[in-house]
């Protein structure tokens, strides 16, 4: 029984014609085909989310709870918000973001959706980028919803280019690794717990850089002081955006029921 379930996953690992045309060269047509395939997955995920409205709203409430809990835990006065604010914001976003990331592949497990996805005649990196784009859109939507509340709570200048750029770079970084790890975690026994255990240590550079850069821009420091932090964030993003699609291909061959 288990062996027969496993069969399709094995069968589709042979090269498929469409995948080969895609890999043939980065000319305009294949790039457009690639983006079209990615969009099909993103579109599906967005539509599912708009119908269910589960992930973004639940993680938004969770992010608010983290902000409120911080207030109870540290009893922050108004003038203490400056030093504590960036940390509060990033811990809330990282934890709530991981809650959402858990769903990226976990929801595909229902009714064998994952097998369907893996059977698509597309390159495996299409699935990675599709899932990454979907997760990125949900996490950014979560941030857009959290920021106004955070601004009200802390009275900090959130809606300025500095914090927003840091937010974008940091989110791309942890979602890039997070999507890869979500695929792994969704196919292990202790799913929900495993993702934070895997992701948080690896995301240390993102958290350190993002918190410091956000703090500097809240203090009104010039871009030159933010530059080293933005550099680390950009390097993290670049390294894992290159590495993850290849690693996802390796992971994808073992996805699905055991």
């Amino acid at each position, binding site marked *: 029984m288990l062996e027969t379930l496993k069969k399709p996953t094995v069968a589709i690992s042979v090269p498929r014609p469409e995948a080969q045309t895609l890999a043939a060269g980065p000319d305009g047509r294949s790039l457009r085909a690639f983006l079209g395939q990615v969009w099909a997955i993103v579109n599906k995920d967005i539509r599912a989310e708009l119908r269910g409205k589960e992930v973004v709203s639940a993680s938004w409430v969770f992010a608010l709870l983290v902000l409120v809990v911080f207030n109870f835990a540290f009893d922050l006065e108004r003038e203490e918000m400056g030093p504590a604010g960036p940390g509060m914001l990033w811990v809330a976003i990282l934890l709530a973001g991981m809650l959402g990331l858990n769903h990226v592949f976990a929801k595909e497990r229902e009714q064998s959706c994952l097998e369907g996805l893996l059977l698509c005649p597309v390159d495996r990196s299409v699935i990675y980028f599709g899932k990454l784009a979907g997760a990125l859109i949900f996490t950014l939507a979560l941030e857009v919803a959290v920021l106004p509340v955070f601004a009200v709570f802390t009275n900090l200048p959130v809606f300025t280019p500095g914090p927003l750029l840091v937010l974008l770079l940091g989110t791309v970084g942890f979602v890039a690794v997070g999507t890869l790890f979500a695929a792994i975690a969704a196919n292990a026994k202790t799913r929900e717990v495993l993702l934070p255990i895997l992701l948080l240590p690896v995301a240390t550079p993102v958290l350190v850089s993002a918190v410091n850069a956000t703090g500097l821009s809240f203090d009104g420091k010039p871009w030159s002081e933010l530059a080293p932090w933005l550099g*680390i964030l950009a390097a993290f993003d670049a390294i894992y955006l290159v590495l993850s699609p290849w690693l996802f291909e390796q992971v994808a061959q073992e996805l699905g029921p055991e």
Partner: protein
Amino acid sequence: MRVVAGPWNLSLTGAGSRLHRTLLGATLAIGLLALYMAFVYAPKEATMGHVQRIFYFHVGAAWTALLAFFVVLVGGLAYLRTRDRRWDALALSSAEIGVVFTTITLATGSIWAKPAWGAWWTWDPRVTTTTVLWLIYISYLILRSTIDEPERRARFAAVVGIVGFVDVPIVFLSIRLWRTIHPVLVKSEGFDMAPEMVYALLAALLAYTLLYAYLLLVRTSLERRRLEVEAAKRAIGFY
């Protein structure tokens, strides 16, 4: 019955083999020499006194841990390339030993920090990076324990091992940048080493590396035996 045959023949690397005995002998000999050099040969440090002698064990463990985690990366890459589970056995063994040596690094560092810095723990860049490293490979081992199916476990572990090692330099850079911007309360290792100390350190490094190689050999041959048993069970239709 030899089910897993191939270049890594068990009789060559297994317990009781010539390589095994040679390595054990060398580890014991160099280990005793390193102990003598650390405790007797190396001079007493002027400001810190005898406490400084833990430095040889501390640096040796730290170097070995990093080497072990590099081997996890190599084992992971080789597994993804060849799908030969003996590479996965190598990566697993190295990760376990690496976590042990990282723990030794943190513990000896902490014991040294109490008299030298006045606190068991400071969030110094190197301490922080080592702690993150420890957590990354602890999570690697936790991941392995949550997956039963061997191919899946090997593949996922290889991916996490690669992501983890690539992360190490970025972690170190970000934490160092963080600590240079904030005031540094205590500077670590502000002393020049006498030549005898350098020799003692080199002996410690060699001893630790040999110990690592020996433990790796024992642990991988154990893991490979496990693979053989599994394959044998499959051959007789046990599964």
